[in-house]
């Protein structure tokens, strides 16, 4: 019988792929939940910091513009922190971010951009394009990132900026909007602008400042930047797993459909074979009579 054996093999292989994709879907679901919980848990902290920043910046008023991180850097280069994923099989998650990056880069002088990268996919992409990757952050692996490590990265970016060879710093990441919507974006990180800090919050002018508003603000700003990095990382990871879960669900469904279609063909062929054999037998007995 032509093809019936091959058909059986294909049905089997589609079935095992389906098992794998279903397992990956399940793994992504649990990881997604974990990162979502962490994102929710970190929210009060970043809200509190952002609130303090905005309240203090209205106390400081115009003095704020003298702060070192508020003026464009001395250099003429641009630093971009790109947050991607380590692994593939997550739909268009990385591709969308790369596309957004290319659109953003169009019209800019690419040779004046340096990159810090999270995630192997991003490093591979930038390397293949011949972009200038200054640092590829692999330690710790993306999934084990905690606030402390995000803070280190934040400090690294800030000191690069303060070092004087950069004009500004951006973060490219996928913002998590909903389970099915992740918005790739390149957001300005440094220099800070009073608008970005949400200045104009209610001014607690009568509040006691210990030691004084300026020094509190100075130690507050680095923390604010750290929370931005941490949140971007968490959002990117959440988006990645949401995207992967979605992609794997689609793959499982497609495998299901394919298996059904193949089974149909297989059964028809099998039936055909049986009918033919039956006809042969009947024909044979007729001839013997």
């Amino acid at each position, binding site marked *: 019988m032509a093809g019936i054996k091959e058909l059986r093999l294909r049905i089997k292989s589609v079935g095992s792929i389906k098992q794998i994709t279903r397992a990956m879907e399940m793994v992504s679901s649990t990881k997604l939940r974990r990162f979502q919980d*962490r994102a929710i*848990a*970190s929210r*009060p*902290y*970043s809200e*509190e*910091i952002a609130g*303090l920043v905005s*309240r*203090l910046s209205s106390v400081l008023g115009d003095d704020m513009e003298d702060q070192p991180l508020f003026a464009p850097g001395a250099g003429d280069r641009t630093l971009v922190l790109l947050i991607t994923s380590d692994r593939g099989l997550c739909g268009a998650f990385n591709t969308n971010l790369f596309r957004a990056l290319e659109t953003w880069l169009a019209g800019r002088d690419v040779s004046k951009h340096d990159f810090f990268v999270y995630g192997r996919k991003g490093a591979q992409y930038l390397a293949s394009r011949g972009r200038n990757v200054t640092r590829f952050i692999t330690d710790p692996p993306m999934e084990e990132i*905690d*606030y402390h490590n995000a*803070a280190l990265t934040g400090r690294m970016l800030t000191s690069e900026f303060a070092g004087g060879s950069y004009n500004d710093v951006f973060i490219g990441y996928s913002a998590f909007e909903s389970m099915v919507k992740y918005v790739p974006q390149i957001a300005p990180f440094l220099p800070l602008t009073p608008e970005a800090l949400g200045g104009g919050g209610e001014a*607690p002018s*009568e*509040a*006691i*400042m*210990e*030691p004084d*508003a300026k*020094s*509190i603000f100075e*130690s*507050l700003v680095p*923390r604010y930047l750290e*929370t931005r990095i*941490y949140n971007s990382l968490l959002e990117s990871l959440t988006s990645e797993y949401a995207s992967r879960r979605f992609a794997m669900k689609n793959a499982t469904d497609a495998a299901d459909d394919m298996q059904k279609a193949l089974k149909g063909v297989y059964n028809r062929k099998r039936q055909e074979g049986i009918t033919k054999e039956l006809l042969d037998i009947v024909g044979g007995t007729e001839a013997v009579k």
Partner: protein
Amino acid sequence: MAGPISLRVITPEAVALDTTCSSISFPTTDGSVGVLKDHAPMVAALGIGELQLRGDAGDSAMFIAGGFAEVRENVVRVVTDVSEPPTDIDVERASKAAERARARLETKESTEGEHLDVLRARASLARAIMRQQVASKYRR
């Protein structure tokens, strides 16, 4: 009745404490500050040390390191990087960290080494010593 002041200790990982109490004291960069009911609004940069609170349920304490405290209308919000109840402090790790920091300071200070490293070692020594103090005070 619950205490007149509500206290929230917030870290990047979670809200570590959300309770009410009658008095709180925490370390700022310029020394310890106590807060009672109807305290004037205040924003303070926190130092390293022990956050103490007195409530109906008795007294309790927590090790904190760095961050900020905001007092407004009988609500105290402590935003800190590290907060550990005394029972969670890893004494062994703290004493090892203290040793390491001391060793680093000895080699650095004599040779007038890098400024930042000295600062870092000092901060880590301060943290380690405070951890040990808080732990030994509340554990037996």
